[in-house]
């Protein structure tokens, strides 16, 4: 038998073609996915950059300055994280480490539903519970509670998933040393899952930093810097929303500028957290 026949060259070239075909298909889809992203970035930079100057970034007292909005967004991120990250991580730990029962199945389902919950409804809930019911005023606390509702399910889900990715042999090694379950989770499992945990937290922060609907009904907006936990506060997405609806050209440019600042804040946070968590104790998988 000739060698070419033995190797079945015809089907080999067909296979090679298929291989190439799927590679090109993947490439095309990648481009389709990335073009809108890049064009948005490009548009935001081109339109937003002219608005940016020192006065615009730090001034207050006027609708034309976003100093209070930047400060408000950072405060909201801090408050929401303080509420959302501990609750989210502990929920995830429960689901991954103790979640072998029917309650956990329920919690998991509710959590998944909450992940895709319409954010305007979260806003209305926080509005009626806290703004109307509890404090009687728009406030960063009300905004943080609304945003925490969005943050918790994301953090819980990613915590559970990344804990489940840690090999069972690691858990067993710890248990076999006579280390208590809670100690095993805290000192062995969570550090091993650190990478996934941080990704989840960063994702959740990026998400809440850009949410508009939940804060629309809870923080009201403010042209001045922080007035206290019981007073209305400003935030970038809210400022973008309000300014972009203006008929004045200058305010529209300022909305673009605020959008650029928001993107930069999320990006900076993302990079900082990754840099801070890199280096020592890098988990190897």
């Amino acid at each position, binding site marked *: 038998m000739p060698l070419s026949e033995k190797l079945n060259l015809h089907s080999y070239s067909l296979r090679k073609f298929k291989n190439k075909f799927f590679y090109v298909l993947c490439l095309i889809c990648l481009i389709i996915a990335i073009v809108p992203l890049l064009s948005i970035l490009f548009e935001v930079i081109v339109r937003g950059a002219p608005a940016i100057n020192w006065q615009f970034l730090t001034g207050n007292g006027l609708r034309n300055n976003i100093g209070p909005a930047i400060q408000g967004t950072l405060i909201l991120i801090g408050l929401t994280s303080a509420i959302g990250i501990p609750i989210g991580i502990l929920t995830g730990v429960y689901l991954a480490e103790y979640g*072998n029962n029917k309650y956990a199945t329920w919690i998991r389902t509710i959590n998944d539903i909450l992940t895709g919950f319409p954010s305007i409804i979260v806003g209305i809930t926080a509005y009626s519970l806290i703004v109307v019911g509890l404090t009687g005023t728009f406030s960063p606390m009300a905004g943080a509670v609304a945003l925490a509702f969005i943050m918790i399910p994301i953090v819980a889900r990613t915590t559970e998933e990344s804990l489940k990715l840690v*090999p069972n*042999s*690691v858990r*067993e*090694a*710890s*248990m*076999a*040393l*006579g*280390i*208590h379950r809670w*100690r*095993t989770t805290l*000192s*062995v499992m969570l*550090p*091993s899952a*650190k990478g996934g945990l941080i990704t989840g937290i960063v994702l959740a922060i990026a998400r809440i930093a850009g949410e508009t609907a939940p804060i629309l009904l809870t923080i009201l907006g403010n042209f001045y810097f922080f007035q206290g936990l019981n007073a209305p506060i400003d935030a970038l997405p809210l400022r973008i929303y309000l300014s972009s609806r203006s008929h004045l050209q200058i305010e529209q440019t300022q909305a673009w500028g605020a959008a650029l600042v928001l993107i930069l804040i999320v990006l900076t946070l993302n990079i900082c957290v990754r840099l801070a968590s890199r280096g020592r*104790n*890098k*988990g*190897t*998988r």
Partner: protein
Amino acid sequence: MDNNNIKMQSVDLNAWFGTKQALKDINISMKANTITAIIGPSGCGKSTFIRTLNRMHELAPTAKLTGQILLEGQNIYDPNVDPVMIRRRVGMVFQKPNPFPTMSIYDNVAAGLKLTGAHKNKNLDEIVKHSLQQATLWEEVKDDLKKPGTSISGGQQQRLCIARAIALKPEVIFMDEPTSALDPIASAKIEKLVVELKKNYTVAIVTHNMQQASRVSDYTAFMYLGSLIEFGATKDIFESPKNQLTERYITGEFG
């Protein structure tokens, strides 16, 4: 067997996973400062058996168990006994080396002491050094103690896991096929180490390697389909097995 010297024994031990019975009426006694080899074909319950001995078996979701395990005469399945305390007295080394991936070599060895709160008033550096020396790893890693535990070779990782287990000064050490993932040279080192450990500990080792069992152990247990077929001095088991099944297994006819 001299009853006074028995460190650990199982009495009418039965174990299940769900409805599947994994162990049937196992009665084995281990004398202090001896090595017991547990042999048998895959799936015969060897691993399950040693996992019942430090209460690791019950961590599986559907695991069930009846009978007794006596550690110096005390039943470790007594409701008043804390499984965590048992695991501190009965150490375990697994088939695949499993150092903690986020910890350095030093911290891996110290983990058992640090995380159980047993390190107070103790010289950790000294214990870590001593444990690594006992595991014959000290010379190879003494300059790299801060490197991740997963950065060394598989054979070194397994000796690191042994060092981690002995750092807690357990009374008994079980090893579940500790050399099955290792090359012959690394295996030989571990074997030598096992014999060395006998001086201070009671050791049981699960193995698929007949030569290994005959080389290192004082007593051998042959298990088949969840039952203990034959148990006795290693010399007797390998030279004049009483049961035909044992003979067929150790001569390589099946398994």
